[in-house]
């Protein structure tokens, strides 16, 4: 299972390059969030950093999963010995499955962490229950990527609603746009089953969402 099937042929591989930008931005946010935690000792920023590391990790595993999906086709000619091809393929399949699982699990866990921060959930019992559910869902949706999309779309959209409704939050908080952008981009990726052009649009919206986040981060550190 891979995102490769949703992408237009001409866009395959380019999406991975675009996602590298999102990965770098995710890690930058995580780094400064962790620095904020160390400085003010605000624990929620430690978890916020973890959430963004996991978002970055989910993109890394998505790239690996996509690359493996492409690679065997290109290497087929190189190996003539059947046994060797078989071993090669099965190992790659194995890595693809693992990276695809990491993609789903880390993205869902990052959503869960954001949810726990937003809801100010501190009960360990509830947190463990949520993590167990996430693990189960990740295993169950091995072949149902669309289910994963639906979870991301709904959760991110609810975060957006929650964030703009909270009057305590500053109006210029860039997170509202991040949640909305993430939700819309996954909605487009969801539509890619009908037409692969939507995958391209979804990826572009995701990139703009992350660039907006980077723009706000740079603004923060401008004197």
């Amino acid at each position, binding site marked *: 299972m891979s995102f490769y099937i949703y992408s237009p042929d001409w866009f395959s591989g380019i999406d991975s390059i675009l996602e590298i930008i999102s990965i770098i931005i995710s890690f930058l*946010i995580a780094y400064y969030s962790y620095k*904020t935690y160390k400085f003010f000792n605000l624990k929620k920023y430690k978890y916020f950093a973890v959430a963004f590391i996991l978002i970055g990790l989910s993109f890394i595993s998505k790239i690996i999963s996509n690359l493996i999906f492409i690679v065997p086709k290109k290497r087929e000619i190189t190996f003539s010995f059947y046994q060797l091809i078989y071993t090669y393929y099965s190992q790659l399949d194995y890595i693809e499955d693992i990276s695809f699982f990491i993609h789903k699990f880390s993205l869902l866990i990052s959503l869960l962490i954001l949810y726990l921060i937003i809801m100010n959930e501190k009960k360990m019992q509830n947190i463990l229950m949520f993590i167990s559910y996430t693990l189960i869902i990740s295993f169950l949706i091995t072949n149902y990527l669309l289910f994963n999309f639906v979870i991301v779309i709904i959760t991110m959209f609810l975060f957006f609603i929650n964030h703009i409704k909270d009057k305590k939050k500053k109006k210029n908080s860039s997170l509202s746009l991040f949640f909305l952008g993430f939700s819309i981009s996954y909605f487009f990726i969801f539509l890619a089953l009908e037409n692969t052009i939507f995958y391209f649009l979804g990826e572009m919206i995701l990139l703009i969402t992350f660039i907006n986040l980077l723009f706000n981060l740079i603004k923060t550190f401008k004197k």
Partner: protein
Amino acid sequence: MVIKRDKIEIISDILTSIQEKNNKIKITHILYKANLSYNKLKEYLDELLNKNLIEEYYDKKHKYFRLTKKGNEYLEKIKQMTKFIETFDI
């Protein structure tokens, strides 16, 4: 957790008040700006002096406070981190 943040806010107020007065401020002005009791302010000032974030000096027999280079850098860091929290307010 909250206590630590409050402490940083107070330190930020003290350092900002010194900076705004162009590095020449009397303790009474800091007292007014930081909105603290005299004893509490004295504790904070001692801590800031020990950490080499501010220094005291005399001009015409009056005692003044100014930011050190380290103090300026620290205030800048507080401002940046506060801006980060405002921008990424979750």
